[in-house]
């Protein structure tokens, strides 16, 4: 690509509704710092000061894959809203998605390639892209020639679409099988359980919108579970979207989440027994004759042991409640049961979720509106996408690093040092790796361990495509484009991989000939387009491409979904045999259950460097800028603990010190700590603020999926006598008869 000036670049960026700049973003023109005395004497084509342009792209703040529209004025991103034509977000967007602008314009972004002599320290030296890529490329190339390519590892966060394919292809061509993903929030257990229940691990579409009765076991579908924006809209319509019909929701969880607050009934079953509760409800469904399937006898004998009285004793939910919920669940036309959160994070996660899935089967709502609708595995863009491997995958990587089997570690878009328990020893194991390269936009805890930091463009400056997971019942692929020119001397991650391939040489550049990620994606889309278009049709790919770019999404509504779920009872029945979670720590030594929970703002900690989210009062407590430990008022009273008392929370795996917060909607015997804060290194807004409860989670895992059982740790609490003020916006949290919530809804 020839040299281009900054003015040309801006012209490209401003040119019309489509961000055609992507192709020219890669090249020296971007990297040369040019200061113009009078910017844009000749304004770029289609650039009018004062007129906003909206570009459609894809949100990358969680794995839901919402389509977004970004408002651009004078080349700057001003606001992010949901893309109205995108089937996941439908024009709406959550707090985290809107705070994407804080990612783009974050003052702590890495602006140039960096080299670090001393791991863990903040001291880095600037280095040119050429030097960095040459050094890294020759190192990797040597390993490849020596036949030691297996000693190269690539660890990324949840990655889908063609970027996933690019990573896989790069590692394949190198001759390494070690491309893996780690994402704390990825529901490995749910996928494994659905494989057992429905025969496919493609996440299904949970049709909350059309349900009459939604029974959620721990899944905070309004805050953090799978696709919060989509499910929030569905929830709104479940409540008030149908004339004369209001859906009911019940939430089972030890600590009230956003979804628990929205529910008509909140049930704090004993932690770890949620799956058992589901079996108790299933027992009633079968024994009351509500279920009339052919395999009724099999179910009847399998569920024989889980009588309401037995389940009630274990779960501490009253028999009446179990029977009543079962009856309502069975009687509703469209009842739906979902599982997530702590229910999906015990040592029996898969068994619990399979038990919940069984409720859907017994109520006969599989493949029906308001029930579980299967998504087909999409063949485009990625035929067989990779999935994060949970705790087991991380442990394997740590073992390999400790054994000295890893010579080069490339890390992108994941922060395992922060989002894995301390006991896993990821950071210590990294010390054994001779060369660590971070492809990152921020100095997080994993990036500070890297010898080379290759700064990546943020998602708002990158090309990409994505298949939302879970899907929406029909094939959908979203396309993302850069909405602004890169702010700094950074490159899209795909372009870095392609540059490395060129540096390494050999057959890599032959099989990966693309100059940029944009070219690669467009090439692949063209292939797919040619394949799908029959002879007679007008084969104008460019028009198609422009149309998809403008819309930001391509889909086939009405195309066949995943078909009828085949829910055979025998594997399900075999899988539910283990309904109660085990806990790390003895009950006498560690009397409390630790309930770490994801927040809608920070998720697994990735949002903590965004000032808008730090300043957003926590929805349930109104706390800003910090961590807290929630205790039931009665428990706190017994222990003489008041808000702001600094508690030492000790698990068999470690301890944290965090101020107490008295929270009226948490089960006695449970202490809840939000995940997200406690960064030691993540920029000015996140660093040295609060604590990270993941660090003291014991490394138990779900046996069937290998997923981290992060809700299966017991702790003890000591009041240190120190005090720390919790900063919050709430004053009085009772309406005191002021009828604020409406006449008749106010009980003081």
């Amino acid at each position, binding site marked *: 690509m020839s040299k281009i000036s900054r003015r040309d670049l801006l012209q490209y960026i401003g040119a019309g509704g489509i961000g055609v700049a992507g192709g020219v973003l890669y090249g020296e023109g971007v990297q040369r710092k040019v200061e113009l005395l009078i910017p844009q004497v000749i304004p770029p084509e289609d650039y009018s000061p*004062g007129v906003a342009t909206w570009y459609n792209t894809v949100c990358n703040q969680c794995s839901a894959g919402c389509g977004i529209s970004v408002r651009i*004025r004078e080349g700057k*991103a*001003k*606001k*992010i*809203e949901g893309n109205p034509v995108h089937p996941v977000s439908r*024009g*709406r*967007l959550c*707090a985290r998605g*809107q705070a994407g*602008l804080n990612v783009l314009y*974050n*003052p702590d972004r890495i602006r140039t390639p960096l080299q670090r002599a001393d791991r863990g320290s903040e001291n880095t030296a600037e280095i040119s892209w050429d030097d960095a890529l040459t050094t890294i490329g020759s190192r990797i190339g040597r390993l490849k020639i020596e036949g030691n390519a297996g000693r190269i590892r690539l660890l990324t966060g949840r990655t889908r679409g063609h970027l996933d394919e690019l990573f896989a292809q790069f590692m394949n061509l190198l001759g390494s099988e070690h491309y893996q993903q780690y994402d704390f929030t990825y529901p490995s257990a749910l996928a494994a359980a659905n494989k057992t229940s429905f025969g496919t691990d493609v996440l299904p579409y949970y049709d909350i919108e059309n349900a009459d009765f939604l029974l959620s076991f721990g899944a905070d579908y*309004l805050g953090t579970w799978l696709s919060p*924006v989509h499910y*929030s*809209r569905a*929830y*709104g*319509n479940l*409540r*008030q979207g149908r004339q004369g019909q*209001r859906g*009911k929701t019940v939430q089972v969880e030890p600590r009230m989440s*956003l979804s628990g*607050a*929205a529910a*008509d009934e*909140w049930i704090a079953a004993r932690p770890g027994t949620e799956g058992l509760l589901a079996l108790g409800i299933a027992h009633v469904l079968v024994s009351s004759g509500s279920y009339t399937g052919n395999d009724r006898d099999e179910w009847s004998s399998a569920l024989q042991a889980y009588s309401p009285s037995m389940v009630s004793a274990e779960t501490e939910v009253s028999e009446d409640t179990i029977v009543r919920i079962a009856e309502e669940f069975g009687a509703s036309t469209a009842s739906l049961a979902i599982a997530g959160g702590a229910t999906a994070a015990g040592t029996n996660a898969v068994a619990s979720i399979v038990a919940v899935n069984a409720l859907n089967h017994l109520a006969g709502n599989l493949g029906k509106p308001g029930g579980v609708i299967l998504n087909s595995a999409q063949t485009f863009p990625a035929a067989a996408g990779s999935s994060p491997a949970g705790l087991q995958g991380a442990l394997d990587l740590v073992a390999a690093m400790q054994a000295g089997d890893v010579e080069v570690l490339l890390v992108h878009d994941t922060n395992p040092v922060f989002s894995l328990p301390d006991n896993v020893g990821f950071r210590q194991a990294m010390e054994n790796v001779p060369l660590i390269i971070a492809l990152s936009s921020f100095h997080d805890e994993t990036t500070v361990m890297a010898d080379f930091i290759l700064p990546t463009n943020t998602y708002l400056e990158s090309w990409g495509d994505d298949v939302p997971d879970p899907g929406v019942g029909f094939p959908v692929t979203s396309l993302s484009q850069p909405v602004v020119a890169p702010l700094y001397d950074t490159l899209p991650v795909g372009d870095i991989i392609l540059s490395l391939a060129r540096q390494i040489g050999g057959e890599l550049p032959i099989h990966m000939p693309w100059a940029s990620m944009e070219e690669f994606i467009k090439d692949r889309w063209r292939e797919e387009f040619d394949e799908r278009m029959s002879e007679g049709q007008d084969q104008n790919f460019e028009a198609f491409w422009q149309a998809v770019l403008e819309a930001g999404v391509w889909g086939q509504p009405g195309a066949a979904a995943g078909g009828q779920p085949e829910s055979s009872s025998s594997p399900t029945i075999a899988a539910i045999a283990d309904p109660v979670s085990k806990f790390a720590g003895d009950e006498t030594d560690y009397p409390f259950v630790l309930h770490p929970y994801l927040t809608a703002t920070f998720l697994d900690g990735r949002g903590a460097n965004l*000032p*808008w989210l*730090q*300043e*957003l*009062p926590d*929805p*349930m407590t109104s706390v*800003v800028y910090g961590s807290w430990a929630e205790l*039931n*008022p009665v428990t706190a009273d017994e222990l003489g603990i008041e808000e702001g008392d600094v508690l030492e929370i000790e698990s068999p795996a470690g301890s944290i010190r965090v101020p107490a917060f008295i929270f*009226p*909607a948490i*089960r006695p015997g449970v202490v809840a700590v939000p995940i997200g804060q406690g960064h030691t290194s993540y920029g000015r807004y996140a660093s040295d603020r609060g604590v990270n409860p993941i660090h003291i989670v014991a490394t138990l895992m779900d046996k069937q999926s290998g997923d981290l059982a992060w809700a299966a740790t017991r702790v003890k609490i000591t009041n240190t006598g120190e005090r720390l003020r919790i*900063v919050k*916006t*709430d004053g009085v*949290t*009772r*309406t005191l008869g*002021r*009828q*604020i*919530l*409406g006449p*008749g*809804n106010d*009980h*003081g």
Partner: protein
Amino acid sequence: MSTFVEKLRQYSKPGYYDEFDYHWTMTIDLDRCTGCEACVVACQAENNLPIVGEERFAQSREIKWIRIERYWEGEYPNIKMGFIPMLCQHCDDAPCETACPVYATYHNQDGLNTQIYNRCIGTRTCAVYCPYEVRYFNWFTYTWDEPLEQQLNPDVSVREKGVMEKCTFCIQRIRIAKDNAKDDDRRRVRDGEVVPACVQSCPTEAMLFGNSKDPEAKVSKMMKNTRGYTVLKDLNTTPSIVYLKKVHA
């Protein structure tokens, strides 16, 4: 001065505002609202609200034109949480308007309670008079860590120390919609053409905004819902925001 007084008399005449085309009104359905706070960030982005820092929060000097209030009912285990988004109610009989010594806050012809920043002298009387506690004072001139300032919305002014600010119902969006209507030779903007940032973002579609003088507007129909109520009704402030209470099944 006399013209000013005359105008003021004219404005206070009953029925004066009926002659105009708009009365902007919002409805918020608490049966849909989940307290997710997407609206809070939407407002922050749209209206250039400052990032005030932890220390200012501890001093209750945060600035959020819309916030979610939370109220507990009952005790464990029979406990419920009620969320209610609280923003300027754009009262037709606004206590804040009578309080301002310099007429920095007044009622405009569209039924908006507006704030003129460069007229405000910072007595903070209006904030004291407001029963909804939705007026926010700039105790400092806030700055943005570079390059966060590049995000600032050029359609909205950035406020300085000594000025009171509050929700405007995204008046900049109303202006743009009116301009567009004028360009198209339409007398009024269409229903749904003006969408404030909070309403736009709401994932559960709990909020509706529109002209309640148009009987066909969605918001006019929603206002008649039997669950509708206004907050602190006894104060006779006549708010322009109608809440629909949550259904307790």
